[in-house]
C-alpha cells in the first residue's frame, strides 16, 4: 500500500516536472503568435481583410477637439467600423489598453506608445519591452477577471470569441480581425493605431518606412520574370496557400508556390511535392524534409537550396514583417539583394 502510494506521488511529481519543463521550453523556442493564420481562419469571411471593407478611419469633425486648451498636440477623433459592424469613436487616446494581438503590441511599441499597453496574451514576445506587460490569457482562453482587475479603458481583440463576455463585464471592446492575408494593409493598420494612440506622426514615419522598403523590394524584382518553384514546409508538410500572409510574400518575391491550389494552411500530399518538384524549399525548424530519403530526388534538395526560416515574423502583420520580406529576398536572390 505504501509502495503504491509512493509510485503515484512520484508519478505526479514527474509529470508536473515534465509539464513545467516543456512549458518553459515552449515559451522560449516557439516564437509564433496567435496572429498566425489558423487553418480555419481563412474560411471565415473577414470583413476587414480587404482594403475596400477594412477598418476605414473616417475623419470626423475636428472643431470640438481643436478647442482643447491643454497645450498638448490636438487629438483628432477617430471613427471606425469595427469587425462586429459597430461604429467606434475615439475622442481621446486610450491610456490603459489590453491588446490581445501581437501585431498591435508591436505597432504601439514601435511608435513609442507601448506604455499604454497594460495587458496582453501569453504568446506576445516582441518587442523585448513587451515581456513586462501583464499576461491575461492565452490565444484560446481569456481571463475576464484579471482583465477587469487591470481596469483598462480599451480591450482590443483579434477574434470575436470573448467579445460578449468582456462587453457584458462593462468593458469597452474593440474587435478587428487579425490579418490572415492582405499584408500590404499593414501600413494602414500602423497609421490607424497611430491616430488612435494620438501619435499619427510617428505612425506615419513607420508606415512610410514599410511602404518605401516594400516598394524597393518590388522594384528590384521587376527584373525577375518568373522565379523558381518553391515549397514552404511549416513542419509535417503543412504549407501555406496563396491566400495567406506568407503565400502573398512568396508571390511578391516572384516565387512559384507549388501549393497554389491550397487554401489557408493545409498538410499537402507528399506525392504532390515529388510531382511538382520544388527548386527551393523554405523550411521551419520543425521540418524534416531535407533528411527524408523520399525527397532526396527533389531539385531543391539536390541543389542544396533548403532555407530555414521560422514562422515569425511573416505570420504577424506588424512592424517586423518588412524585415522578414527583406531577409527572405536576400536568401533567395543573393545576387539581386547584396
Amino acid at each position, binding site marked *: 500500500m505504501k509502495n*503504491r502510494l509512493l509510485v503515484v506521488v512520484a508519478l505526479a511529481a514527474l509529470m508536473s516536472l515534465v509539464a513545467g519543463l516543456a*512549458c518553459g521550453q*515552449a515559451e522560449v523556442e516557439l516564437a*509564433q503568435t496567435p496572429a498566425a493564420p489558423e487553418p480555419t481562419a481563412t474560411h471565415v469571411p473577414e470583413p476587414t481583410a480587404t482594403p475596400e471593407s477594412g477598418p476605414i478611419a473616417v475623419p470626423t469633425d475636428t472643431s470640438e477637439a481643436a478647442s482643447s486648451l491643454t497645450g498638448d498636440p490636438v487629438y483628432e477623433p477617430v471613427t471606425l467600423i469595427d469587425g462586429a459592424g459597430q461604429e467606434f469613436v475615439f475622442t481621446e487616446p486610450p491610456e490603459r489598453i489590453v491588446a490581445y494581438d501581437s501585431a498591435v503590441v508591436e505597432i504601439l511599441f514601435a511608435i513609442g506608445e507601448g506604455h499604454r499597453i497594460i495587458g496582453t496574451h501569453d504568446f506576445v514576445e516582441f518587442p523585448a519591452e513587451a515581456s513586462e506587460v501583464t499576461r491575461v490569457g492565452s490565444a484560446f482562453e481569456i481571463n475576464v477577471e484579471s482583465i477587469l482587475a487591470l481596469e483598462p479603458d480599451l480591450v482590443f481583440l483579434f477574434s470575436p470569441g470573448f467579445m460578449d463576455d468582456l462587453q457584458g463585464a462593462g468593458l469597452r471592446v474593440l474587435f478587428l480581425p487579425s490579418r490572415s492575408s492582405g499584408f500590404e494593409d499593414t501600413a494602414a493598420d500602423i497609421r490607424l493605431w497611430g491616430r488612435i494612440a494620438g501619435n499619427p506622426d510617428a505612425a506615419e514615419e513607420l508606415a512610410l518606412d514599410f511602404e518605401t522598403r516594400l516598394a524597393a523590394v518590388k522594384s528590384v524584382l521587376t527584373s525577375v520574370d518568373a522565379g523558381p518553384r518553391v515549397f514552404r514546409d*511549416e513542419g509535417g508538410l503543412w504549407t501555406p496557400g496563396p491566400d495567406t500572409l506568407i503565400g502573398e510574400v512568396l508571390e511578391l518575391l516572384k516565387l512559384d508556390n507549388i501549393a497554389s491550389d491550397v487554401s489557408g494552411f493545409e498538410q499537402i500530399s507528399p506525392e504532390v511535392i515529388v*510531382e511538382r518538384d520544388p527548386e527551393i524549399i523554405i523550411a521551419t525548424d520543425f521540418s524534416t524534409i531535407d533528411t527524408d*530519403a523520399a525527397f532526396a530526388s527533389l531539385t531543391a534538395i539536390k541543389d542544396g537550396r533548403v532555407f530555414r526560416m521560422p514562422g515569425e515574423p511573416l505570420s504577424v502583420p506588424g512592424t517586423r514583417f518588412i524585415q522578414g520580406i527583406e531577409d527572405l529576398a536576400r536568401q533567395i536572390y543573393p545576387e539581386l539583394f547584396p
Partner: protein
Amino acid sequence: MPGSVYGVVRRRVAVRLAVGAAAVLVIAVLAAGVGAVAIPLDDTVAIALDRLPGVSIDGDWPASGETILWKLRFPRIVMAGLVGGVLALSGAAFQGLFRNPLADPYLVGVASGAGLGAAVVFLTGSSLFAVGGGLPIAAFAGALAAVAIAYLVARRSDGLPLTTLILAGVAVSALAGAVTSLLMIRSDPSLRPLLSWLLGGFSGARWNHAWLILPYVVPGAVVLLAYARVLNVMQLGDDHARAAGVNVERTKIVLLGVASLLTAAAVAFSGVIGFVGLVAPHVVRRIWGADHRFLLPMSALVGAGFLILADLGARTLASPAELPVGIITAFAGAPFFLFLLTRKAR
C-alpha cells in the same frame, strides 16, 4: 465422428482466413493504383514488377513516378496494413482479456502516453532529438510508461485485478491527456505537425518505419495468436480458467504486455488512430462468432484492409491536401458499426 467434424471446421476456418488475406492483398493492390498524383496503370505495374528480385523491366516511366510509388505510396500502404492489423489484433485481445466490449488497444493509457511523449519532444524542440527521429521514440516510450504505471498501481500481491487496471488506465490517460492539452494550450498555433500526429496519419510512412516495427509486430502477433485458445477459456471467468489449468495471472501480464507493446509500436509512427481497434473485432464477432482462434487473425485482416482503405481516402479525398486518417476511420467506421448493432448478434 467428432474428429472429422473438427477437421471440417478447421478447414472452413482456414479457407475463410485465406479469403480474408487475399481480400487484403487485393485492396492493397487496388490502393496502389490510386493516389494524389495519377500514375498510369501500366507504369504502376511495371515499376512494381521491376522491383521484384530477378525481374528487370525496361520502361520509360518518369523518375518522379517511381519515387512516388516506391518511396511514398507503397510503404504507406504497407504501414497502413500493418498498423491496422496490429490495432485490430490488440483490440481483439484486449476485449477478450478484459471481457469488455468497449475495450480497445488504448484502454490502459497507450494513446495518451504516446501523445504526451510526442508532445514533450515536439515542444522541447530539436535540441533534445531531431524531430522525426525523436518523436516516434518518445511516443513509444510514453505509451509503454503509461501502461507500466497503470500496471504498477493496479498490481496486488495476489494478482492483477482487471477492473482496477482499467480504472488506473483511465486515470493515467486522463492525467497524460491533461498534461498534453496543457502543453498545447500554453504553446501556439505552429502546433499543426503535432496535431496531425495526434490525429493519426500515414503521410510520413516510409519503408524504414515498416522495418523498425516488424521486429515487434511479428513476434507479438505470434504470441497473441498463440493465446487464442486460452482467451476462449478465460471468457468463462478467472475461476473456471484456473480450474481448466490456465495460469490466469501470467496470461493477463503476457497479453497486457504484448498487446501494449504492439500498439505502442504501431502508434509511434502513425499517431493515434481511433476506431480500428474497437470496431474490427466487433465486426468479426458479429459475423462469424467469438472463437478467438478465428477472431484474432480475422480481426487483424479486417483491420488491415479497413485502414488501407481509410488511408486511401485520407490521401485522395482532399487532394492535394491530406486528411487525418483518424477522421476517415470514424466517418466510415462509426455508421457501419451502428448499422451492425441494429442487426441481431450471432
